[in-house]
């Protein structure tokens, strides 16, 4: 880790000014940033500590939705009563993310900025080729150890998986990222790698996440997050699904359905084809399993990650059927 200077921002404006300087980065919980600095992936010149800024850690939940300040801690949001009752998938995604220690430190804004766990990305000394770190240098992962890599949204330049859980739930329920005055839907906030995998988020220099807004909905209220992995705790998803459903008055016919995938794609992955195939249909196991296969339409494996293409639809189907049982 290189020496860096540290300053504590007194206001959002001051933070943004400082962060615009070359080599400056915002510091919130630090759980990703310090880790990446130790790996030699990021070498900040200046860390601008925003954790003391006032008014950015509130959690407000009403009829229209929830607004979560960027500095709210993952653990607080996971355990918030109204989040649990109105957005169970959000709470469950957070509970199943990271470890208790990390959830107590990491912030919601920082969580959205979490970077991939691709081992080639994280080891510059041994694997200098990484288009995400050094545009144009190549991809060490393609042809290498790919068990944890993405099968959806990949490009010839990058197959790194997006590792987070929270954003999967957010993209399912059309959440919006507040960048000061500007607002960006979460689905647009995360960028596909394409030919520029170094650019991961639709955030410009001089901008900062201030809040996340999740619209309230019936499907968000009846939702769940199912995360499958070899280890029961503290592991990234082999495949996960955030699912929400709203039934017609008959309690069986699907009026609205939300499906998003984690652990399988280069960004939080909304599976609209699977949603559309079931809307207006009666929730019934065979139909759910058939529609769930659409969630991985277009998937491409790189050998060792082939199992994700088999696994992800089963996770989606189980999650939808589970919500049906509680109808």
């Amino acid at each position, binding site marked *: *880790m*290189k*020496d860096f200077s540290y300053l504590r921002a007194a206001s959002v404006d001051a933070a943004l000014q400082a962060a615009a300087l070359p080599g400056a980065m915002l510091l919130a919980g630090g759980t990703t940033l310090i880790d990446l600095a130790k790996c*030699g992936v990021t070498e900040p010149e200046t860390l601008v500590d925003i954790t003391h800024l006032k008014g950015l850690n509130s959690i407000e939940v009403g009829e229209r939705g929830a607004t979560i300040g960027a500095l709210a801690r993952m653990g607080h949001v996971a355990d918030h009563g109204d989040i649990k009752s109105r957005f169970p998938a959000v709470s469950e995604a957070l509970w199943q993310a990271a470890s208790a220690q990390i959830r107590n430190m990491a912030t919601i804004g920082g969580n959205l900025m979490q970077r991939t*766990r691709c*081992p*080639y990305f994280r*080891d510059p*000394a*041994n*694997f200098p080729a990484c288009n995400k770190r050094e545009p144009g240098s190549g991809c060490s992962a393609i*042809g*290498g*150890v790919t*068990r*944890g890599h993405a099968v959806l949204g990949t490009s010839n330049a990058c197959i790194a998986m997006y590792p987070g859980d929270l954003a999967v739930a957010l993209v399912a329920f059309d959440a919006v990222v507040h960048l000061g005055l500007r607002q960006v839907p979460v689905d647009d906030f995360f960028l596909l790698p394409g030919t520029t995998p170094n650019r991961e988020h639709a955030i410009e220099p001089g901008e900062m996440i201030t809040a996340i807004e999740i619209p309230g909905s019936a499907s968000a209220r009846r939702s769940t997050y199912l995360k*499958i*992995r*070899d*280890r*029961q*705790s*503290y*592991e990234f998803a*082999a495949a996960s699904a955030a699912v929400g459903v709203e039934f017609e008055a008959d309690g069986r016919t699907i009026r609205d359905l939300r499906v998003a995938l984690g652990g399988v794609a280069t960004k939080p992955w909304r599976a609209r084809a699977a949603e559309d195939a079931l809307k207006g249909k009666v929730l019934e196991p065979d139909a759910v399993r058939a529609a769930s296969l659409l969630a991985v339409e277009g998937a491409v494996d790189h050998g060792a990650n*082939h*199992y994700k293409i*088999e*696994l992800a639809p*089963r*996770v989606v*189907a*189980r999650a939808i059927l589970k919500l049906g049982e509680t109808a």
Partner: protein
Amino acid sequence: MTVHNIRHGDASDGALSEAVGGRLSRVDGPAKITGAAKYAVEQRLEGLAYAVLVESTIASGKVRAIDTTAAEAAPGVLQVLTPDTIISLRTASDWFGTPPPDKPYCPLARDITFSGQHVAAVVAETFEQAVAAAALVKVSYDETPSIVDLSDAKAGDGIPIDAMTKEWGDAQAAFASAPVRICAAYNTPREYQAPMEPHGLIARWEDDQLTVWEPSQWLDGMARTYAEWFGVPFENVRLVSPYIGGGFGSKALALSHGAVAACAARMLGRPVRLVMTRPQTFTGYGGRAATRQTVAIGADANGKIQSIVHRGVNETSIDGMWVEPLGSVTSIMYATPTFSSKQNVVRVNSVVPGAMRAPGENPSAFGIESAIDELAYEVGIDPLEIRLRNYAEQDPHAKKAWSTRQLREAFATGAERFGWFRRTPEPRSMRDGNQLIGWGVAAGTYPVRRAYGEAIVRILADGSVEVESSSIDMGQGTYTILAQTAAETVGVRADDVVVKLGDSRFPRAGVTGGSRLAGVMTGAVYKAATSALDQLVGLAISDPRSPFHALQANTLVVANGRIGSPRGDGPDVSIAELLKSVGRDHIEATGDTMPANSTSDDRYKNYTTIAMALPHTEGDYSRHSWCAHFIEVRVDEDFGTVRVSRVVSALDSGRLYNPKLAESQWKGGIIMGIGQALLEEGIMDRRHGRIVNNNLADYLVPTNADIPDIEVISVGIPDLHSSVLGGKGVGELAIVGVAPAIANAVFHATGKRIRDLPITLEKLI
């Protein structure tokens, strides 16, 4: 380091808990929990400098050049060590004490034989400066093709290790003519000890005296290596290692990073600290070697074994030799009229593998205990029943009686507690919703390794007792059981015993490995304490100033720190009062378990090599610990995820010196076995010959959420052929057999036989 009269246990720990066999809580626990325990690299020394290693990024080839210009110019840098600039050392002898070749030793490599090999080191005023400068060292290589692992086409069949061959009868012929035959290959991957405390040290030279603060499972063995490297007398090297944050076999030898730090300290004339990063702990020393075995069993229609043919292979490095004895359990677990086991080792571009909890027995049991389960299904016999039908009434290989073998009791007790007889035998016949339920059984064993130990016991003026030994406590409970041994033998409370360990200036001890330490050291402390007690009683009887002098007693009784006559009809004084009355400020006795005519050379050899360890089949008996694991798994039929939901294990470690601590070690072994079965695997990038999951986020070990309640039951009886006080090995036993019990349970749950560890979800969906 001293554990000063730390209060122990809760109120339920009565006086009995202080004797050998009592459930005394760990006396070092409070110091560790409160942070008062100072680990090796936490010493604060004047003028400490920090060293950071630079490692090879290729797996095979030569270092062409090392450009240190930028690193040397970086802030705070004191020196950059390369193969050209580091001082020359001498090659040290191996752990058998084999005289080394007379050639220099350089801990920094010019010839690269694995990725992650130390090629340079940077020493700076601060750790951060050293890290930053190490990244500026530019190493260029001439790369050559590497042999990645056992499956590499270039690896070949390897080198036959004739000493591993075990044969009786014509096993091949008996297998060929057997009515029932099964044959399969079982593989285990590279696994890593992953101790919580990474390897590291502080080295300080004062003239020709070297002090090394380093976590160590073998102070005297490591001190010998440092002394031989630097050509100084053994007595000039002091190893200090009061606490160890987990070793699991990986901290028994002085390693090349230690040599680098000691060289840097000598060259700089300052103490130097070097701690491996977590990724470096995956290549800086060896984990468990990857193994392959084929096990062929021929049997009659009743499942009675007629032949076992076993072939094993393990990885070793290009220029080092590691043999993981794969036939060790295969050859003793079951009675068979014919047997053949042979083993090869294959050289690959890896760091030389090393000892990891039950080296040999662990993978060996995965083979034979999976195979016997396959045989049970082949002949349609309950997996527990087939083990009893083939029960070995004596050691089938050594043809000697077991010293004790409570394995039948382990099977019976474990099965009863687990409810084994409610099991339906068909695979996929037990389920709970989406969860397929499977019950598996497997046995484990570990030999009783014996050696000699030495200790000092002092009775001090205040009546307290002090024990000194260069043995160590890496969490298994040495401080505690030696306090119990001294307390019971002398006749004081355990609270009044201070045990000092982890300093090579103390009376010597051999390696803490092979589950031998407790048996060795309780024996030595028992002898020293008995001798100290004899002196105390002798003084009390014979010294004219003693209040007991007039009594003309033959003996006296010491209990709870007080001395009295056996019939209680004379004076009753405290030990402190007696010592005061006879004008002594202490009594000291050295005790050892060495043969009476041992020379000082014998002693040196015993404590600094493993050459004098006693074979477990020495004399008339074959000595082993035994266990039976009964395990329930739940496998999600859609996702392939395996969760262990119940474990009942019955274990025979002979007499337990402290059941609470033994149970804790057994549970630790079972947990490690669950990790081995389901999670742990070094994953290789075959293009680079490099393990890519070299950190604790990607190399998965179990979390609390992965571990159910574990019930462990002791079925052992005192075994005086195995140790002075009747105990057998504890630490390594319980991991042996866990992985096959889980694999067998997974087969019962799913009908799929997984013969390659770990059992990850993609193997089951």
